[in-house]
Each structure stands twice: as structure tokens, then as C-alpha cells.
């Protein structure tokens, strides 16, 4: 069940089938009827539609992006009572484009997780099968779009948090190039990785949202001052002659057979359409997760040092000195996963270990980027699975941090390198009958080709 896209909303409003206010209320009602999914942390009762390319389009936003005057928790008890005092740049841009906001979506605490079971506000359920996880960390956003509780959503992706839940919920999830979209007003997890992107029902909608949110922002000095093309322009071009690389490392042990089969049959679609398929290698692929789980916790330990119970958020009442306030507020406010990663990062950055862990991981990161750069000398895109399996059962991996980390094995290398990538539904697993995502990775700032290739999958894959 897909429901409205940006195109059908705009057509409906223009042809006076419904007003922006009516469609907003319809969606709000749908949200109330689907409370069992636990996809939301906050909902809003009114939306002011402005004029623009997204005029009257109701959307939802992951609860780690600030909307002025509203509660923003990042899925954590430590921010349970925090009220944003300004708009994130992506919100400013969506408001300017006329979009309306239905609510803030549930997520793994501080975006740390691959199942949305790490939320302090309870797990999100997968609309395709409510006994299963929606993926994570943008699980609330992906579930909301899959259940048609919004036309589109924003998520954030540090190691796969847009693409992996999109894959598991059967929707489109785009992680733009690092620096393509401003993170001003995004609660930081790992600043050299984090990127905001759209979760949508169609590839065309992903292109339309990217058109609005992409671009340089003086308030985020890491944004690139590169031109923003119209991403909808070349969506329907022929794929004949495009060079598609398939890394052999993507098809090793760990990939479930039904996912491998579906990915291979999707690659056949390109062969049929005249694209040039070639086998490639990313020799350092197998070291990606290890490098990631040093670098990301290190950045987390620094970014999350600001949550100290002094200026905002949860503050321990039973403390008797300044230090005691810090320690008790953080102890009571953070869940197990942030604590785990803060401690890992603290250890990796501590005296005597910095060179062995952090510096070594940065060098391996350089090798992984070099592997991609070399591959892109001969291909236009790299394709493969988004996740090793379809959605797993709630609780199935909850006590095994390493098993949950392995969920991101195909998405993490992309964030280490900074590249753009999309997950687009390519069909259901032969045995699970659950959605499988096809991942397309592009060259730096070449979202246009990534979207173009994804459009081909959306058109020709069956049973999505």
C-alpha cells in the first residue's frame, strides 16, 4: 500500500479534490489509527502550508532534527524535556518549500542502532509484519512512510540509518554525499559521517526532496559549495551503456540466500537494458566495520560530552557536587547503547591507545576510500544489497551488540568514504516474503546517476 506521493498530493490540491488542511487532517487521523507501530515520539495538530514546490505536502521528521518551539528528544531520556529554540536548516528549507509537518519520528537513541529497539520510547514495529523490527536508526521515519502515515520523511544516516530501515520497510531511502545537505540543527552523532536524507515512496519523490534540502549552508561549514542540479531531470534516461560494478566482496558468507538471489536477478535487469555489468573488488571492504566501530564511537564520546545536566535536558536531583551532577545525570539519562559507545570512544582516544586505534582506523578509512576511487575509474555506479537479510524479529538480536552492528556491513563503507547511495525496493524474499532493498552507490556528488539507476529498478523490479 503506497498512498500519496508528492505528485498526487499536488495534483489533488490543484484540482481541488482536497485542500492542504484536509489532507493534513487525514494523515493525522491515519497516524492516530496506527499508534501500535510506535513510529512517533511527538505529533503536531496543525500544519501551515506555504507556497512552493512542496506546497501542502505532509511530511515527518526524525526526532534528532530541530523544529523551533517543539520537543526534540533524539530518542533519549536525557533530552526528554528539551524544546528546540531554532529550526534546523533542512526544516527552514522544507518550510520555505511549503511542506507541512505531521510529527517527529521514533529512532534509536542518538541514532545508534539498526533495529530502533534502542529508543528510550519503545521499539518501532515494521508495518509489513508487526512482530518484526523496521530496521534503524531511522525506523520511525521508514515505518511511517511504508504505512502511509506521511508522504515522505527525513532521516539521518551515519552508517546506514536511512538505507537499512528503507530496505526493511520496502521504501526508498537516499543518503546524499557527505557535505551535500546541511546538518545545522541535526543533533550530532559522528560529525565526519552524519548526513540527512529523504525516505520516500518513489525515487522521483526522493529527487524532489533532495532538490529542496541540498546545497551550501553558511551555518554548516562542512557543506560543499557545489552547484545543485535538478535531480528529477534525468530520471527517465536510458541506462544503455552505463557501467555498473558489482563487488565480489558483497556476496560472501553472511548474506542470506534469498537476498543474494534477488540482488542478482535485479542486476540482470540492467544487463537486459544494455548496461555494462562488471565484477569489481573492494579489497579492504572486510575491514570497514572495524574501522567504523573505532571512529564513530570516538566522535560520539566527544559529541555527547555536552549532555551534562547543566544547561538543558535531564538533570539528576540527588547530586551533591558539580561532578556528581554530570555523572548522575548521564547515568540516568543515557541508555545502554550510548553508554557502550561513549566508553568505547573514550578508550580508543585515551592516552596510549590513540595511535593504535583511532589513527590506525583513519588510515584504513583512507584505504577504503581509495578502493572506491579506483573502482570508479571504470564504473559509473556500484551496486549490491543494502542489508544482509530481510527484517528480523523484535528481540531476536537485542542482547548481541555485534550481531546488530553486522546489519550495516554493506552500508558502513559508503559512509567511511562519504559517497552518495540509495536503497530502492527490488522485490520480496522468496522464503520470507519481506522487502529487500537494492543499494546503488555513486561517485562523490553524483546523486543524479544514483537516482537515475534507482528509477530503472523501481520501474522494472516486480513484486515490490
Amino acid at each position, binding site marked *: 500500500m503506497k498512498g500519496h506521493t508528492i505528485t498526487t498530493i499536488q495534483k489533488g490540491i490543484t484540482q481541488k479534490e482536497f485542500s492542504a488542511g484536509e489532507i493534513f487532517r487525514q494523515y493525522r487521523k491515519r497516524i492516530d489509527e496506527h499508534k501500535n507501530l510506535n513510529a512517533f515520539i511527538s505529533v503536531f495538530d496543525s500544519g501551515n502550508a506555504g507556497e512552493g514546490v512542496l506546497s501542502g505536502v505532509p511530511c515527518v521528521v526524525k526526532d534528532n532534527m530541530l523544529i523551533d518551539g517543539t520537543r526534540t528528544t533524539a530518542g533519549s531520556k536525557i533530552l526528554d524535556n528539551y524544546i528546540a529554540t531554532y529550526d534546523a536548516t533542512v526544516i527552514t528549507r522544507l518550510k520555505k518549500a511549503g511542506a507541512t509537518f505531521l510529527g517527529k519520528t521514533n529512532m534509536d537513541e542518538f541514532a545508534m542502532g539498526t533495529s530502533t529497539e534502542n529508543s528510550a520510547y519503545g521499539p518501532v514495529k515494521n508495518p509489513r509484519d508487526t512482530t518484526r523490527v523496521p530496521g534503524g536508526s531511522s525506523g520511525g521515519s521508514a515505518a511511517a512512510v511504508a504505512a502511509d502515515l506521511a508522504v515522505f520523511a527525513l532521516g539521518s544516516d551515519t552508517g546506514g540509518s536511512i538505507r537499512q530501515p528503507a530496505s526493511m520497510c520496502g521504501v526508498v531511502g537516499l543518503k546524499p554525499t557527505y557535505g551535500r545537505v546541511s546538518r545545522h540543527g541535526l543533533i550530532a552523532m559522528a560529525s565526519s559521517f552524519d548526513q540527512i536524507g529523504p525516505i520516500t515512496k518513489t525515487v522521483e519523490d526522493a529527487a524532489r526532496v533532495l532538490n529542496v534540502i541540498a546545497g551550501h549552508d553558511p551555518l554548516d561549514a562542512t557543506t560543499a559549495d557545489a552547484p545543485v542540479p535538478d535531480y528529477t531531470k534525468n530520471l527517465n534516461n536510458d541506462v544503455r551503456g552505463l557501467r555498473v560494478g558489482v563487488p565480489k566482496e558483497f556476496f560472501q558468507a553472511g548474506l542470506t540466500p534469498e537476498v543474494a538471489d534477488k540482488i542478482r536477478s535485479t542486476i540482470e535487469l540492467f544487463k537486459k537494458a544494455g548496461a555494462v555489468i562488471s565484477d569489481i573488488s573492494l579489497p579492504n571492504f572486510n575491514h570497514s566495520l572495524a574501522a567504523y566501530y573505532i571512529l564513530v564511537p570516538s566522535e560520539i564520546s566527544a559529541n555527547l560530552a555536552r549532555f551534562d545536566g547543566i544547561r538543558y535536558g535531564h538533570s539528576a536531583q540527588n547530586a551533591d557536587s558539580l561532578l556528581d551532577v554530570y555523572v548522575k545525570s548521564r547515568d540516568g539519562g*543515557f541508555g545502554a547503547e550510548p553508554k557502550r559507545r561513549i566508553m568505547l570512544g573514550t578508550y580508543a582516544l585515551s592516552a596510549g591507545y590513540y595511535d593504535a586505534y583511532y589513527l590506525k582506523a583513519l588510515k584504513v578509512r583512507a584505504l577504503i576510500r581509495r578502493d572506491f576511487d579506483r573502482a570508479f575509474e571504470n564504473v559509473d555506479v556500484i551496486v549490491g544489497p543494502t542489508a544482509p537479510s530481510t527484517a528480523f524479529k523484535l528481540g531476536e538480536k537485542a542482547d548481541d551488540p555485534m550481531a546488530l552492528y553486522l546489519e550495516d556491513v554493506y552500508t558502513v563503507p559508503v559512509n567511511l568514504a562519504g559517497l552518495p547511495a540509495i536503497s530502492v525496493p527490488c522485490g520480496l524474499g522468496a522464503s520470507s516474503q519481506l522487502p529487500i532493498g537494492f543499494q546503488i552507490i555513486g561517485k562523490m556528488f553524483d546523486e543524479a546517476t544514483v537516482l537515475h539507476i534507482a528509477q530503472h529498478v523501481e520501474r522494472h523490479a516486480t513484486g515490490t
Partner: protein
Amino acid sequence: MLSREEVIKIAQLARIALTDDEVTKFQKELSSILSYVEQLNAVDTSGVEPLAQVTGLENALREDVVQGVFPPSKQQTEALLVQAPAREGDYLKVKSVLKAK
């Protein structure tokens, strides 16, 4: 395997208090993750420059002038201060840094 003392030391550095059970739990979990990342030692990185910034952007400079939301209005200041657990006027109030004798 990390020792209990090491876990307690890391938690202190990170300003997190742990119960005895949590020390045991994190000792096991952190050790398992650290033993997984040990594989990087086998990678030859001689002559490789570390990569921290993927777009190659170096400095982003601007004129050093007051701009944007600065200076904040009275309402903006209040919106920030009202979130503090303790305040005195326009100041944040904190517990004593040094313990009284």
C-alpha cells in the same frame, strides 16, 4: 579482555557511573567489540595518510562580524535559560565545584 578496573577507569573518564552488574556487562561487551576491531592490526597502512575529511574541504572562512541570530533577543535568551534545571536571574546555577570542608 579488559579488566574490571579498566572499565571503571573508562567510565570515570566518560563521566558515567556504573553499577557492579553494569561493570560486568560492559567488561564483556566492550572486550568483544575490541577483539573484533583488533583485525585492523593486520592491515598494512605504511605510507597511508589518515583520512578525516572526505570532501577535501579545508577551511571555511567568513568575515568576523556579528550576524544571524546574534545578538539574541530577550525572548531567545529566555527560551534557552528556561530549559536550565537551576538558574539565578540570567545565570545558570550549578552545584559547588569544591566540597566544603
